[in-house]
């Protein structure tokens, strides 16, 4: 029987202190567990909850209760930053997450820089900050994870992504300028979340994957700007998780250079090998989302046991969950970890 609260367990892991068993979490943002099955049961639904702090709080609680994940994760999308920075957003449906309808700038050379304080009072930022505050006050034992979209992904959400990726090589000066701007904004957003009850920050940067960027661009841009943001968050005395999607073989040796507290990876990555290669890294992941949608509870439990046996520090899904993932499968994941 454990007397450690979920919040304490997660903080202890991130601080490299001893614990009874790994926490099992689903951070939120791009990796959230607001599946259709839960929303149809409780009636607290998306897309409404994207815009309303009371609904967002209730949905967060529903998710935590029904799935067994040991955290709250807000928001339920990756479009908050792009929206305040100017891109147009399609807010999606019950089953389909919000997406970028149109990136606001055609090129890194045409980015209009806004005042960051002004940005922080726009869009849905206040909604999310309020939600974090409610949840942290009402449920002090459960960690509130505030989610940021990473710098590369945010940049690729406000400049046409195909052009942006080319301009990483073609127009380096303006690419760097854009990423400085985006990073400064993200640090201030993180500060707002932390000051209002977020226990920690999780940064999801799918576009920053080694698969897309390759080692040269990864080092020049992804590592540099992630670290800028990580240093900013650490200065606020809060821990951080970074999630990067995809196959990381080409940037394997660059991963320990990311100054994150925990690194969360996709199913393709051999987390056990990562941990062995870099013992000081706190590993998080990486149960296949394919398994969570199409598998059986038995298979999920088996795969979870493997992750536990491999000594993975924080157990979580590998990437964004399908909204039609079954609760039974998700509960097999969380249940297996808690039985440990």
């Amino acid at each position, binding site marked *: 029987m454990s007397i450690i609260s979920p919040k304490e367990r997660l903080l202890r892991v991130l601080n490299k202190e001893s614990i009874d068993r790994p926490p099992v979490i689903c951070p939120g943002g791009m990796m959230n567990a607001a599946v259709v099955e839960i929303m149809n049961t409780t009636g607290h639904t998306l897309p409404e909850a994207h815009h309303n702090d009371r609904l967002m709080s209730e949905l967060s609680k529903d998710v935590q209760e029904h799935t067994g994940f040991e955290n709250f994760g807000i928001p339920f999308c990756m479009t908050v930053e792009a929206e305040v920075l100017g891109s147009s957003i399609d807010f999606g449906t019950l089953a389909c997450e919000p997406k*970028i309808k149109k990136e606001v700038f055609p090129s890194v050379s045409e980015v209009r820089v806004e005042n960051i304080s002004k940005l922080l009072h726009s869009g849905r930022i206040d909604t999310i900050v309020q939600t974090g505050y409610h949840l942290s006050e009402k449920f002090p034992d459960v960690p509130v994870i505030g989610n940021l979209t990473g710098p590369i992904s945010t940049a690729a959400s406000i400049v046409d992504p195909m052009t942006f990726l080319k301009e990483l090589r073609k127009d380096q000066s303006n690419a760097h300028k854009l990423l400085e701007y985006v990073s400064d904004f993200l640090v201030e957003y993180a500060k707002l979340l932390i000051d209002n009850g977020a226990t920690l920050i999780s940064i999801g940067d799918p576009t920053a994957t080694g698969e*897309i960027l390759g080692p040269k661009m990864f080092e020049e841009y992804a590592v540099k700007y992630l670290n800028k943001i990580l240093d900013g968050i650490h200065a606020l005395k809060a821990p951080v998780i970074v999630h990067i999607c995809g196959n990381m073989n080409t940037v394997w040796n660059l991963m320990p250079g990311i100054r994150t507290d925990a690194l969360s990876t996709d199913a393709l990555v051999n987390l056990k090998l990562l941990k062995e290669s870099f013992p000081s890294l706190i590993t998080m992941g990486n149960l296949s989302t*394919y398994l969570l949608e199409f598998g059986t509870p038995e298979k999920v439990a088996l795969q979870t046991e493997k992750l536990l046996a491999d000594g993975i520090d924080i157990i979580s899904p590998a990437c964004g969950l399908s909204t039609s993932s079954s609760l039974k499968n998700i509960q097999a994941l969380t249940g297996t970890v808690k039985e440990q």
Partner: protein
Amino acid sequence: MSNNKAVLFGKLSEAVVNMDEQETVILSNEVIREELDAYDAIDQGLSHGMERAGKLYEEEEYFIPELLMCSDAMYSGINILKPHIKREGLGEKHKVVIGVVEGDTHDIGKNLVKIMLETAGFDIIDLGRDIPPQDFVNKAKETGASIIALSTLMTTTMEGMAEVIHILKRENIRDRFKVIIGGGPISQSFADKIEADGYSVNAADAVRLARRLTVSVPVAVGV
């Protein structure tokens, strides 16, 4: 004359691999000045370079930024040479309807497949992203396509691919088109499960797959 041709086409290929848009423009203009065959210059010069770039991508030397710049270099040259292509005796190209399935907006992979298939001589109808299954079928019918190519990066939207095949069966036209699929969560076993005609792991592989599937298929003439 033929030596000059080989040298020039070789330089075109090199310029694409070197991501040098200015150079492909200069060289393409030289092709025209020398009155060399524009189609051959594209095929043996620019496309040849793009294929080499695709190979470097498969070998993990080039990544997306590099590949996109190579394709820019290629297209800059193509834009100059295209008006000078002699029309006769070229033969019809197989058409491919491509897009990202409904609910998903990740289109980098799809864009790469489009570039590589065009390079390989297919005629691409790009529907874009977030495309309902019925639209794929409708456009394929309308254009007499040989292949429907479906892309998704998300687990949630994979079912859309099965839906396209379901619609084709329901309209009794399943045999008229080859359906190929790709994307992060996609696998050969998923392709088998939904009875797709093929799965490719990356853009270069998509070219091999598309060629294999159309080698004995006549090009549909009109509708």
